């Protein structure tokens, strides 16, 4: 009986230690962005990226927002630099197409970032890489819904396959 109690005590200590080590960071948010890829009437590809302001601001400014404090929209120049590093479009010849920040607006806690690749006129053979917020969350999943040339498809980008461009 003494041995059983001893084991019970050891178990209780381990349990408490395990419990104490758990933190509020273990809550289970979904780390996701949603992007719609379409083409304008002149053939220019357009991406509208929906991303939560708190995460986006932290990634763009490289500063974590203070909890409870209002989060301002990041500056256009900083956003353009960030998406230039994390959203990559290449044309059919494999050339990287520069992206232009065409607009940015906010609805509640969501930011809508509109990007265009004016140098691309045909989506045949084009590829996309979407690494937004991969620098912030290991479990980030970026969803891209494309409607190009009458064809709809959904692409998932994860940190695991971050370096692989996907055909659009």
């Amino acid at each position, binding site marked *: 009986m003494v041995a059983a109690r001893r084991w019970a005590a050891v178990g209780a200590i381990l349990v408490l230690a395990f419990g104490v080590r758990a933190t509020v960071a273990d809550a289970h948010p979904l780390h996701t962005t949603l992007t719609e890829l379409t083409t304008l009437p002149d053939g220019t590809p357009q991406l509208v990226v929906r991303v939560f302001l708190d995460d986006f601001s932290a990634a763009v400014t490289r500063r974590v927002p203070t909890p409870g404090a209002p989060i301002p929209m990041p500056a256009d120049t900083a956003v353009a630099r960030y998406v230039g590093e994390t959203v990559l479009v290449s044309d059919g010849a494999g050339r990287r197409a520069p992206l232009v920040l065409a607009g940015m607006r906010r609805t509640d806690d969501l930011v809508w970032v509109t990007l265009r690749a004016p140098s691309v006129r045909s989506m045949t053979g084009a590829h996309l890489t979407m690494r937004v917020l991969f620098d912030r969350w290991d479990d980030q*999943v970026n969803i891209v819904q494309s409607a190009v040339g009458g064809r709809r498809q959904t692409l998932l980008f994860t940190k695991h396959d971050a370096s692989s461009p996907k055909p659009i």
Partner: protein
Amino acid sequence: MSELFAFGTLGFRHITDPRGADHILFLLALAAIYRFKDWRECTWVVTAFTLGHSVTLALAVTGAVVLPSRVIEFLIPVTIVATALENLFVRDRSAALWGRRYRPVFAGVFGLVHGAGFANYLRSLFVDRIAVPLFGFNVGLEVGQLVVIALAFLSFAAIDRAIGVVVSASRRPDLGRPVRIRTLAVSVVVMSVASRWMLERYPW
């Protein structure tokens, strides 16, 4: 990739991601009392949980109900602690209210709370077309949950075997059956972690 499959993948990844342990802990608490031969009963309980969170997810995402996220974040560990406590204190479920059938009912009710946990997030993101993403996400969650449960059953079988060996070697039959010891151990660990979350997320 089709839209349905893409969002199914998202749901599957979400539920099986070990970095976000709240749903996994709840599933472990639900499954802790079962042995492999009880897999049908456990699947019913898990499916009831899916149905519960599908209902709230659909209601919240479509804007039919608005739920305060701080309260929901607090209630999620409460459901985990309550399930673990039920494991600890109810020894004979056949003698309990509604026999063994009450477990799917409370799994469904607790599922309502868990569904609200990510509803606010999805509603913000999918402001327009929601039906296919929502359905795909839920299918992915259900498949993911069944995978978690299957892995839990494998682990439980190994733990039961190890406990059986220790109990036999100790020549102390009064220590109890391996299943009961494992149920208590899993429930206490799960309860310990969830209690901590409960305190940290207290919203008032």
